[in-house]
């Protein structure tokens, strides 16, 4: 199949899955908007877990299923689509939850229904076409576009599922087809412009799918003149049931079964792994080496996104986020092309290129996390915490530092942790930009997965996935035992214009 045909099939799949996903995310978003904070946190975690599960782990865990279904391509395609649906639904839900409510709220919509369409038709601006932009579609279309974009760019599962069925490779995937052209036919080696010849179509599709999200982000900047309805349509019991059932299915199929599969499949290899026969030591060392640039990249992406949001530069943030939003393959190809054309020889595969590429890829995710976790604290509460940090008594200084940690430090730590997780498990940019000595451990596992499943690979993959989780667990445990450093408690006298309270005699 030609690249154009693969691109067309992938786009069709992306649109179909997103059409199914959009009503589902509408149902999932409503309980999140109406829940109490405790329930909301639980639901958010359950929603995020399948999205955070690495695609290559899911693809590896189910690769045998697709082999079993090789003679039933429709079932194979549907199974792949279900896994993609599970992966993208959280993203669409987050868009609906985070986006400002559309100006045409549910109460206004109900008033329109009570008035009757024949009456409303008399006034052009109350028609359905105008309502499309002001009503719920205002947020649902961008959510649809972003989910379609993620499906369109999916690479890892497709790559591990891709088998020859009949006369063609299935499932169709433009990203895999393009990668095969680069890897097998040396596309772009003779002339970097060759990359454009094949890459323009996926890039145009990506921009088209992303356009509604960019339009929403641009028009949602703070505008006091825009109507913000307060009413949310109350949830119904059947929506609750659908949401709970979906979350259970998604966590089960998207995370529990793949991880359980790794544990079960790798069980025979555990003894050998611990004895060192499967090179546990070098694997751990490689994992540690992979984490080091990831931490630097995550911190830099977080700092840039935080600075741009704090200084209110939405235009610059959107411009810098655009390459990352186009997907890691598009970004990797764009960077490869740019570096081949413009950079000094040898910069193409370098740690510098990797740092730039992954930072740009993580930047929109960092911005999303800053908003989602409310990382940017309110100025008033920050100022009050600082006043306490410089308080005259140790108790006040401890309280000040504890508040700063709770309201700012903890959230930043979670944000950087999540960015590290994504960076550590990223494969495409690693493949395209990293020098051989900096290829990540996840990349190595992924390469080996193409040669089939075995106990050693399953157990080593589990170790590789568990390394960052173990580091987080260790840091959380340490954080519980280590009290506020005494250096903070001894910090100087208050630097405020307020007169300190007089001590009682």
């Amino acid at each position, binding site marked *: 199949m030609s690249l154009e045909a693969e691109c067309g099939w992938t786009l069709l799949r992306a649109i179909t899955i997103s059409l199914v996903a959009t009503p589902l995310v509408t149902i999932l978003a409503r309980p999140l908007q109406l*829940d*109490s904070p405790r*329930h909301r946190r639980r639901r958010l975690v359950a929603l995020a877990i399948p999205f955070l599960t690495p695609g290559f782990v899911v693809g590896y865990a189910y690769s045998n299923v697709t082999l079993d279904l090789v003679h039933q391509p429709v079932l194979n395609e549907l199974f792949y689509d279900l896994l993609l649906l599970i992966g993208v639904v959280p993203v669409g839900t987050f868009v609906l939850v985070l986006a400002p409510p559309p*100006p*045409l*709220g*549910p*109460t*206004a919509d*109900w*008033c*329109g229904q*009570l*008035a*009757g369409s024949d*009456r*409303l038709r*008399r*006034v052009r*601006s*109350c028609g359905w076409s*105008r*309502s499309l*932009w*002001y009503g719920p579609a205002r947020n649902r279309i961008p959510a649809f576009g972003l989910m379609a974009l993620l499906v369109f760019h999916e690479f890892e599962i497709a790559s591990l599922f891709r088998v020859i069925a009949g006369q063609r490779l299935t499932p169709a995937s433009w990203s895999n087809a393009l990668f095969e052209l680069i890897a097998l036919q040396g596309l772009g080696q003779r002339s970097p412009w060759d990359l454009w010849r094949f890459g323009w179509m996926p890039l145009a599709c990506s921009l088209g799918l992303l356009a509604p999200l960019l339009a929403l982000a641009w028009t949602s900047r703070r505008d006091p*003149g*825009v*109507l913000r*309805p*307060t*009413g949310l*349509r*109350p949830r*119904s*019991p059947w929506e609750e049931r659908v949401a709970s059932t979906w979350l259970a299915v998604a966590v089960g199929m998207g995370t529990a079964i793949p991880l359980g599969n790794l544990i079960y499949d790798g069980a025979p290899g555990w003894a050998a792994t611990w004895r060192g026969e499967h090179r546990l030591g070098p694997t751990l060392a490689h994992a540690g080496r992979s984490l080091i640039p990831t931490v630097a990249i995550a911190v830099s992406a977080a700092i840039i996104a935080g600075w741009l949001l704090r200084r209110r530069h939405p235009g610059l943030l959107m411009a810098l986020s655009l390459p990352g939003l186009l997907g890691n393959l598009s970004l990797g190809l764009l960077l490869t092309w740019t570096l081949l054309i413009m950079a000094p020889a040898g910069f193409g595969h370098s740690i510098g290129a990797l740092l730039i590429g992954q930072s740009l890829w993580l930047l929109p995710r960092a911005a999303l996390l800053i908003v989602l976790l409310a990382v940017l604290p309110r100025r008033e509460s920050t100022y009050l915490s600082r006043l306490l940090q410089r308080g005259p008594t140790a108790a006040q200084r401890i309280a000040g530092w504890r508040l700063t940690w709770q309201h700012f430090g903890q959230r930043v730590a979670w944000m950087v942790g999540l960015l590290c997780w994504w960076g550590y498990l990223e494969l495409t940019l690693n493949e395209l930009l990293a020098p051989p000595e900096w290829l990540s451990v996840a990349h190595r596992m992924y390469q080996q997965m193409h040669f089939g499943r075995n106990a050693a690979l399953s157990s080593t993959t589990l170790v590789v996935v568990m390394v960052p989780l173990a580091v987080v667990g260790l840091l959380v445990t340490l954080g519980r035992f280590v009290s506020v450093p005494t250096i903070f408690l001894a910090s100087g006298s208050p630097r405020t214009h307020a007169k300190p309270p007089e001590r009682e005699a």
Partner: protein
Amino acid sequence: MVDTQPGLWTVQGIHLVGDTRPRLKVDHLEIMAGRTAVLGPSGAGKTTLLNLLVGFESPHHGRIETRLPTDTGRLPLFWIPPDGGLWPQATVDEHLQAVVPHGTQSSQDTLAQFGLDHLQNTCPGQLSAGERSRLSVARGLAANAGVLVADEPLVHVDPARLDRDWESLVSGTRQAGTSLVFATHLPSQALRHADRVVVLSDGQVIAEGHMANLYRHPPSREVAESLGPANWFEPEDAIAWAVGKAHTCLRPEQVVLEADPSGPARIVGSHDIGAFRETRLELIDRARGRTILHLADSAPPPGDLRVKITRRVFAE
């Protein structure tokens, strides 16, 4: 008093589940034609009940029988939701034009009534909160529906014009023969504008009936206090303070503190709060006191004066 007006809604065995407690639990409730106030503190379930009546929400259990007038050529029902429910893309004038029964009908009078005539080409995003409240009410009136359900209407309107706008709403519905069901947490609005009242507390109906009747003879302290300032006497208190068993609730305007050397109480102190006066009394033969709220319609009584509480009688 016998109800002659037809019922608009019958609510039967309604139950709406909430996070920690039921949002609404009603065994039986009739909403009559005319003007009905739904009264209760914040979180009592007023909005939930009104949402059910207009069909914006559905009950988890139970049913609502609707008998709205449908053959009159008018809209059977229109709603003033708590957030205004305005259409962001439509101007002030278009809001009214979209609902008036005949497209050409002038909405100028209604706009002028609510002080919106100079804003007719403005969209809701550019209006203040008070103006949005007024627009929502003006649209509700312009719809000329058989029944208008208003959830805390005019809530953001400044006090200087609040009474005038309420009067416009009530007189407008009266002239058009529109039944009005409105939620409020202000007993004064309910007293002034409603014939009947439904009192809610913690998602349950604690009283319903004719406004004047419930105001004078509330069945419980909670209902008494929901409907306005009240001096509530438990049966044993009624005997001790000699107000008579039959009068467990005395409204401030019903109370007269009459100087009486043989009265059961003496005045400890008093202070005026606007039209009312709070007077602290103490029983002579017991070390017990209470505060009585009554009209400040005379000079403050001197301290230590022995008094008895008498009831001013009004025509029922």
